[in-house]
């Protein structure tokens, strides 16, 4: 199995720096997602790891060995493409056999490996089908099987779920994640869908403008974003104005805001009196009927969507909040409410601008 190390990797197109000196260490068997909006350099990075795109500067090491000058066909990677890229003139079996033939694997072993991997992706009886006789989800699983059957050093996936419908996409997330765990293969996954990156990855690499904005576990990225841009990219966020009062227990600051005085998690230290911006996730907020303390406000809109209800609440202090709750509370549009937010729902984003 393989450890991948990317060092100051850069790709320039003319004067544009598509990827600008990024460094990532990927542990053996780790599932890493490159997450970012289109044009952030995530796909270019993946293509450089695969060898389809030449690196302008920097190194890519597989187990310590620099592969920058190794052509794609010799890098021993398994790749899954957004449009699956199954060979349309070959059956499922022939598609899977292709990589094994290139490796000169003997027939009997080839048979057993194909059977095993088809079993793994639950396509046992489909080996004689042509790609156009399969559904999108099945084609996707064949593409996965074709990449895995060669037992590559690393698995690269380029937005593999983008062409599937929402329900199938959710199923495939879990499917790919479980499969990757079972095989234990080092995996790099490119996506612009934050929920996909969160569910599947051990660590998420958030990229903006060719640079790494933050690397961390999904909970780190979501709960402790480095800046506003990241916070907004990985989910919805309420911004609350606050003032530093002083230090609290380890890593926390006491901050005064419309919700009173709370001890808020923070990465950095700020002098008392500094104006700061707090983030507050919509699902951390609790609404109660009027007169139960907290911040006072009025519900201006209510959107019911089954598993949750979205509220818009105008606080008397002027801020508008976005709130998500379980649909078991009976608060209607126009009701006056008490808004409560627990201390651990806040995160200190930084000094107010």
């Amino acid at each position, binding site marked *: 199995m393989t450890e991948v190390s990317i060092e100051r990797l850069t790709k320039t197109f003319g004067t544009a720096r598509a990827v600008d000196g990024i460094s990532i260490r990927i542990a053996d068997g780790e599932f890493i997602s490159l997450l970012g909006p289109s044009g952030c350099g995530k796909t270019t990075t993946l293509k450089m790891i*695969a*060898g*389809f795109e030449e690196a302008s500067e920097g190194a890519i090491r597989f187990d310590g060995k620099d592969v920058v000058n190794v*052509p*794609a*066909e*010799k*890098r*021993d*990677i*398994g*790749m899954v*493409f*957004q*449009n699956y*890229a*199954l*060979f*349309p*003139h070959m059956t499922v079996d022939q598609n899977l056999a*292709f*990589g094994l033939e*290139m*490796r000169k694997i003997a027939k009997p072993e080839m048979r057993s490996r194909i059977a095993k991997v088809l079993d793994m992706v639950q396509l046992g009886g489909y080996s004689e089908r*042509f*790609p*156009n006789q399969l559904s999108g989800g099945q084609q996707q699983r064949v593409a996965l099987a*074709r*990449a895995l059957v*060669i037992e590559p050093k690393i698995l*690269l996936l380029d937005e593999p779920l983008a062409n599937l419908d929402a329900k199938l996409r959710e199923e495939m997330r879990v499917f790919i994640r479980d499969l990757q765990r079972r095989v234990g293969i080092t995996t790099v996954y490119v996506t612009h869908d934050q929920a996909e990156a969160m569910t599947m990855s051990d660590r998420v690499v958030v990229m903006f403008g060719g640079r790494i904005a933050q690397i961390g576990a999904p909970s780190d990225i979501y709960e402790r974003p480095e800046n506003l841009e990241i916070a907004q990219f990985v989910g919805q966020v309420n911004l609350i104005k606050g003032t530093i009062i002083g230090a609290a227990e380890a890593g926390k600051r006491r901050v005064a805001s419309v919700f009173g005085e709370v001890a808020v998690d923070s990465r950095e230290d700020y002098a008392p009196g500094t104006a700061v911006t707090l983030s507050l996730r919509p699902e951390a907020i609790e609404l109660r009927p009027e007169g139960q303390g907290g911040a006072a406000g009025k519900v201006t809109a209510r959107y019911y969507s089954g598993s949750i209800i979205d509220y818009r609440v105008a606080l008397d202090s002027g801020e508008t909040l976005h709130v998500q709750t379980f649909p078991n509370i009976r608060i209607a549009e126009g009701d006056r409410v008490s808004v409560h937010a627990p201390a651990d729902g806040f995160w200190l984003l930084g000094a107010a601008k």
Partner: protein
Amino acid sequence: MKRPVLTLYCLLVYAFLLAPILVVVGASFNAGNFLTFPPQGLSLRWYVTFFHNDVFMRAIRTSLWVAAVATVISGTIGTMAALYYVQHAGRWKETVRVAMLAPLLLPEVLTAIALLFFVYAIGIGTTTMIGMVAGHVLITLPFVFINVSASLESFDPSWDMAARSLGADRLTRFRRIMLPLIKPGVIGGALFAFIISFDTFTISFMLKGIGTSTLPIQLFDYLRTNFTPEAAAVSTVSIVLTLVVVIVSEKVLGLRIHRF
């Protein structure tokens, strides 16, 4: 038959296209001595005459030989040109396309005269078949080029990348992935090339060696002095030969490619 006017229109178009062929085929079974339609009695005598006519037999062999050689050369060069055009031409793409299609735009007689001067200027002359074959390659090249580049445009580059990631070198990728997937275009182009070469008059007329003759030229020669139904028999055989080439290629080479 929901749209009678449209149906009638289509029938008329078909009649316009096919009637001359039917007349020729009909006239070839004429028992009389003159090329007339409708035929005066039915007979295969003119086919017998044709098949015993050495001059025509030699001409048909020459035509088939030239068409086969020209098709192979044109198919190879045209496919390579299309590959360059689609994958590597970059900002020269439009220039390459115009250059490749130029033989279609020039009047064939000009191409033929230019080639005639050329083969004499470089000392090849018309004593060998080289000049004529080169001419046939030139006028059939655009058809191969158009067909192959059309099928290359629908070739998804990620197929090539997938094959690379699976460990296939350039040659293997061409042989096992690209060629099978662009085969319909290559075969289509080659068929066009064969038929056009088999059928062309002007180029062959200018560039043929003394004493050699292709079927269209021989037919023209024949009609200058004779007006028997043998000419119709020759035409019918050439129509049938063309059809046979199309159908056989389709069956032998083409059938498997239509599965996707």
